[in-house]
């Protein structure tokens, strides 16, 4: 405009034309959008009587047509009847098409006669259009569109007017460019806002912690979620990330990074020690930031709290280990049990053989010797008769002992409760001495009773206690060939202890270890069932007492049983 003001065109121009362009320029400047600007321009061209009809179009690359986007004035359906192209086809040879292609205004002075106007002539004349000018709205290489105006007057537009339009159009193009730039900027800004919104909601709604670490290992960003662990971002920012990794997990994590750098995808699990001393398990998929050449610039990682899962895993592993341990223990126990049963079964076989021998031998002797006694008697052999009767007597006692052993074993083995009656220790010892005194004497072994100043009473089963003492005393005599067997009874706190001490052969280490086993016999060929001590121990323990022993090979053995005092 300023340029136009100084030119000769201005002086020769109708003031109405200048006024129109001025108003149009003002409208364009104050327009809020491209559409508003073009609408105003069309309207003002018609209002100021520069044209009977005006329209603005925009090129459509797909159809190659110029699509009307604004119009003003009396077109009487002209635009819906005609098509205008901007390529070099017939429809592109009109003023608008030429204007697009050349980037210059195109003037049709006489619609009635213009050669190129053929496709639209009839429609244009029917609406009283006699001359027309098309002005491209261009800026540099950018073609924004076109403004085409029509007049009822033939040759209505002078070259000066066309120049004026051209100058106006370039201002319009500048405005449109601004609009489009602004639009693009706004669009970009909006997109950015949307994406930011998305990201923010993602970041804020996740419990994951996002962290960025630069190539020096410094933490350059940490998302606000980290404050959930009671840590302020400034406490970790700019510090080396490795300082916060649990020392045991550092090597593993760095190894994972090394793998990730060469493209092996890894998921790292590691513990973080927060500045306030919390230990948190995190899981992280390594995510390297690379520049355009693929060089690693740092790491941005999403840390997922895996503490809970780790806890569950550890618990599960713990349970598994516990289960395996139990199974192992149970298997071992079972194996031991099986071995015990096998050993017991072997011992039981041995026992059956022994007990059969033990029972049958005295029985055989009784059977034989009663016959022999009869014969001796018949022959008047008094000495032999007495001898056989003594043998029968002795073997009958032995048989009774063996049978009692067997019965006791089955009784004690199935017993769950023992009687608790007052049993006099003095009487108990007496009854044993009555039976074993003569046997010891015959063998040349002194059977002594020591102590016994105060009357002692045991709380126990009167039918079982004699068996205990009998067994210990008979064993002592059996394994002692010279010297003595001493019985000592004492009160020891809540217990009465009865010791049977001999000066016999003593026990080997194996015998000491195994003598309480059922059916164990120190000398397999010696008479006996191998259950005596087993029963003694069971009875003692069944009474809430115990049995102890001391033994030395060649020196002798002392058994002491402790039974509850009455």
């Amino acid at each position, binding site marked *: 405009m300023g340029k136009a003001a100084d030119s000769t065109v201005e002086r020769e121009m109708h003031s109405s034309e200048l006024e129109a362009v001025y108003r149009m320029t003002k409208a364009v400047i104050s327009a809020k959008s491209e559409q508003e600007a073009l609408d105003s321009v069309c309207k003002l061209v018609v209002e100021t009587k520069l044209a009977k009809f005006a329209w603005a179009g925009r090129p459509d690359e797909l159809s190659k047509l110029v699509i009307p986007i604004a119009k003003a004035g009396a077109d009487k359906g002209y635009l819906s009847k005609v098509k205008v192209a901007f390529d070099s086809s017939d429809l592109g040879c009109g003023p608008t098409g030429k204007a697009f292609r050349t980037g210059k205004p195109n003037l049709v002075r006489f619609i009635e006669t213009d050669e190129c106007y053929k496709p639209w002539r009839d429609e244009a004349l029917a609406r009283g259009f006699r001359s027309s000018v098309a002005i491209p709205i261009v800026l540099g290489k950018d073609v924004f569109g076109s403004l085409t105006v029509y007049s009822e007057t033939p040759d209505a537009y002078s070259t000066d007017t066309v120049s004026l339009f051209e100058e106006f159009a370039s201002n319009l193009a500048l405005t449109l460019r601004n609009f489009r730039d602004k639009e693009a900027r706004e669009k970009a800004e909006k997109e950015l806002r949307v994406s930011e919104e998305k990201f923010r909601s993602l970041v804020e709604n996740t419990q994951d912690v996002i962290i960025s670490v630069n190539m020096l290992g410094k933490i350059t960003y940490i998302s606000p979620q980290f404050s959930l662990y009671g840590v302020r971002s400034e406490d970790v920012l700019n510090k080396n990330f490795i300082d916060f990794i649990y020392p045991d997990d550092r090597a593993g994590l760095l190894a994972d990074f090394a793998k990730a750098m060469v493209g092996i995808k890894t998921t790292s699990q590691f513990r973080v020690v927060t500045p306030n001393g919390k230990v948190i398990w995190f899981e992280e998929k390594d995510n390297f930031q690379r520049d355009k050449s693929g060089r690693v610039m740092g790491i941005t990682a999403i840390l997922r709290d895996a503490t809970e899962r780790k806890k569950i895993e550890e618990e599960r592993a713990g349970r598994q280990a516990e289960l395996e341990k139990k199974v192992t223990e149970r298997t071992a126990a079972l194996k031991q049990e099986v071995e015990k049963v096998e050993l017991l079964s072997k011992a039981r076989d041995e026992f059956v053989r022994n007990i*059969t021998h033990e029972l049958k*031998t005295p029985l055989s*002797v009784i059977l*034989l010797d009663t016959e*022999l006694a009869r*014969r001796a008697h018949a022959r008047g052999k008094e000495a*032999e008769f007495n001898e056989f009767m003594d043998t029968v007597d002795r*073997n009958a006692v032995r048989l009774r002992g063996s049978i009692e052993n067997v019965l006791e074993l089955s009784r004690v083995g199935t017993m769950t409760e023992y009687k608790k009656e007052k049993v006099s220790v003095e009487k108990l010892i007496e009854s044993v001495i009555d039976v074993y005194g003569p046997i010891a004497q015959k063998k040349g072994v002194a059977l002594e009773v020591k102590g016994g100043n105060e009357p002692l009473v045991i709380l126990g089963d009167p039918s079982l206690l004699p068996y205990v003492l009998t067994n210990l005393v008979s064993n002592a005599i059996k394994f002692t060939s010279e010297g003595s067997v001493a019985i000592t009874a004492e009160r020891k706190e809540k217990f009465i202890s009865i010791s049977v001490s001999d000066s016999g052969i003593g026990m080997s280490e194996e015998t000491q270890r195994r003598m309480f086993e059922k059916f164990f016999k120190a000398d397999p060929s010696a008479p006996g069932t191998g259950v005596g001590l087993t029963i003694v121990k069971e009875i003692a323990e069944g009474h809430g007492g115990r049995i102890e022993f001391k033994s030395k090979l060649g020196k002798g053995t002392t058994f002491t049983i402790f039974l509850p005092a009455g």
Partner: protein
Amino acid sequence: MATKKKILIIEDEPDVARGVQFLLDDAGYEATVALGGEEGLAKMKGFDLILLDLMMPKMSGRQVLKEMSKRSLKIPVIVVSAVGLPDTVKTELESYYPGTGFVSKAHVRELLLEEIAKVFAKK
């Protein structure tokens, strides 16, 4: 019976040995006792019959039989066992010493003299 048949009793139970000895003496044999396998093996030369217990400490009747077989002795043997022996054991013992007879201790008074008579009748 010009001379008395000599019988050796190898038996560790003195009561049994003594009884059997009396029974045999009473029946007109000359019975001697050996209280164990070793003693029996040492004494057995010159005997007409051996009565042998199986379950004995130190040297069992089984071992005695094997040893006798090794020495190619021909003295007849009757095994006097505390228990009645199953056939498998009898077969086993006969394989060590063919012609072995068997009597269980429980039936000594009824069967032993009969078995001894059978052995001597064969000769």
